[in-house]
């Protein structure tokens, strides 16, 4: 059972604590009624852990991720990274969306540099840009513009762009959702490789049960209306995991059962 990055690798990640967080949004039709996106959600994440949020649409997974980035604020409750409360967006918490959202006016290299430019440290850290392009295997595309890239390549650039700031927590909102099945499985390995190399704490939103089992240390099952944590499942399978092993399939069956999707007997 390997749940933390391999021994000997420094952990860049940082622990995370979410306590009693609630968030509502105004419902579009009726102005005085509000949708409970999150209702009293609490969660503790260890440094260097890889957590998957699994659940149907509307269960508040993305909202929770947005609160952790600091792009949005909870109605009540607290969020902490390490010993610091989250008060706004920071380069310590990277974000990757389903749409890579690369800046189309910048080349691959300039996109990856963006974080260094934004923090005003490009001069000191320029050398790292090449490392990161190599890390995601895109060195030969340094001067290509995003519209020349395939979906998988664009998502790798987005990962490198988020990782260059050495974030303590990396938030991934269905980052592989738009990719075809084969590219997707390749990218899962890629994300795992980056995670093992860096020890970044990763929070990963997905709709895909296999993906959640294949990747995570723990799976956080969420239910909608109001968004709540239904259950937290420890995934104790050895890494690298076998997608068709007995234990894998058994866990898959258990989760389907919990979500009431196991089918009629």
């Amino acid at each position, binding site marked *: 059972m390997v749940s933390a990055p391999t021994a000997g690798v420094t952990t860049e990640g940082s622990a995370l604590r979410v306590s009693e967080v609630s968030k509502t949004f105004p419902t579009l039709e009726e102005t005085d009624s509000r949708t409970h996106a999150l209702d009293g959600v609490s969660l503790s994440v260890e440094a260097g852990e890889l957590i998957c949020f699994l659940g149907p649409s509307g269960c508040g997974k993305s909202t929770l991720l947005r609160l952790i*980035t600091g*792009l949005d604020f909870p109605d009540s409750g607290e969020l902490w990274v390490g010993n610091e409360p989250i008060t706004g*967006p*920071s*380069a310590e*918490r*990277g*974000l990757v*969306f389903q*749409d890579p*959202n690369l*800046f*189309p*006016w*910048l*080349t691959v290299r300039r996109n990856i540099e*963006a*974080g260094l*430019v*934004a*923090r005003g440290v490009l001069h000191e850290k320029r050398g790292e840009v090449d490392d990161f392009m190599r890390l995601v295997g895109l060195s*030969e*595309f340094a*001067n*290509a*513009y*995003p*519209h*020349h*890239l*395939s979906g998988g*390549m664009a998502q790798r650039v987005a990962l490198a*762009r*988020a990782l260059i*700031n050495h974030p303590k927590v990396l938030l991934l909102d269905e980052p592989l959702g738009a990719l075809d099945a084969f590219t997707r499985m390749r990218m899962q390995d890629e994300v795992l490789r980056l995670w093992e190399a860096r020890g970044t704490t990763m929070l990963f939103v997905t709709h895909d049960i296999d993906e959640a089992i294949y990747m995570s240390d723990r799976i956080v099952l969420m239910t909608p209306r109001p968004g709540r944590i239904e259950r937290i499942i420890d995934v104790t399978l050895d890494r690298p995991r076998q997608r068709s092993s007995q234990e894998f399939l058994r866990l898959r069956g258990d989760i389907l059962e919990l979500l009431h999707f196991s089918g009629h007997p």
Partner: protein
Amino acid sequence: MNATPELQETRDTSAPPKAIAAAQSGSHAPKISLGTLLGLPAAVAGSLIVHLLISKAEMPDETRDYTIFLSGALGVSLVLVAAQAFWMGLRHWLKESGPILIAVALLLCVGEVATTGFRWLPMPYFPSPAGILQSMIHDRVMIFDSTWHSLLLLAGGYSLGVVAGVVSGVLIGWFAPWRYWGTPILKWVGPVPATAWIPLALVVSPSAILSAVGLIAFAVWFPVTMLTASGISNTRASYLDVARTLGAKPSYLVFRVAIPAAMPNIFIGLFMGLGSSFLTLVVAETVGVKSGLGWYVSWAQGWAEYGKVYGALVIMSAFFSTIMTVLFKVRDRVLVWQKGTIKW
């Protein structure tokens, strides 16, 4: 769609011998029709013959320059037809532009027949092509001078308008208070044509030149502000979110995210502004400033020298379309990241 330009290039270089062989055998060269190839010198020669026949009855002084012009054009067209056999780029261009050049030669011929030839069109309002060329050559110093003055006025007014428009567009598009106070101004003052302010401009401004610069700047300011503001405020929220999580400060969000994202819109504003700046330039020169091509046209008209009027129009067309082309080139350079996705 994995292919990037680099990738394609390396693929191409893997097979250079074949490409060269194809070029040498001529199978890769564009096929140019015999009609275009012979039609161009024939059309020019036809115009020259018609001109020589018609101008027999005219004073030789007034038609000599046009004879030289058409003879020169004939020489050039013969050289083009001969050179395209060896020069691939020229052949491409000739295949593309040949029919248009033929049409121009024929149009000149028709113009001459309709004016000097049969005198279908009333004089002095419709001089012959020969007469127009004669006036242009005769008045070349003044026309050059007027063009120069127009260029200065346009450059001053346009750049002032662009700077003001981009600045106010960014302010209105980004900051809520600026949007609140700026939108009504934009909505009520902007649509009034710049030329409608001429009476006020003449009263307020200490000099006619300054008032013209101000009017042109105003004409450019409105579309540039409008399009810049809409581009800025429509910046994809997720670009801004990503930038914030990368550690971006507000200045980065404005200058490195919102403005680049708005660039395609800003260029639409620049083109619209350029169009209205031409209009405003010509009108302002006519009524206020006593120099420039606009003034020259109305001055020549006052003396009933229509040859000069048309001569100035020819220069104006070349002048304005050159500026337009320059802006297109700038656009292609700045928006190179959109290459293949823009269609205008």
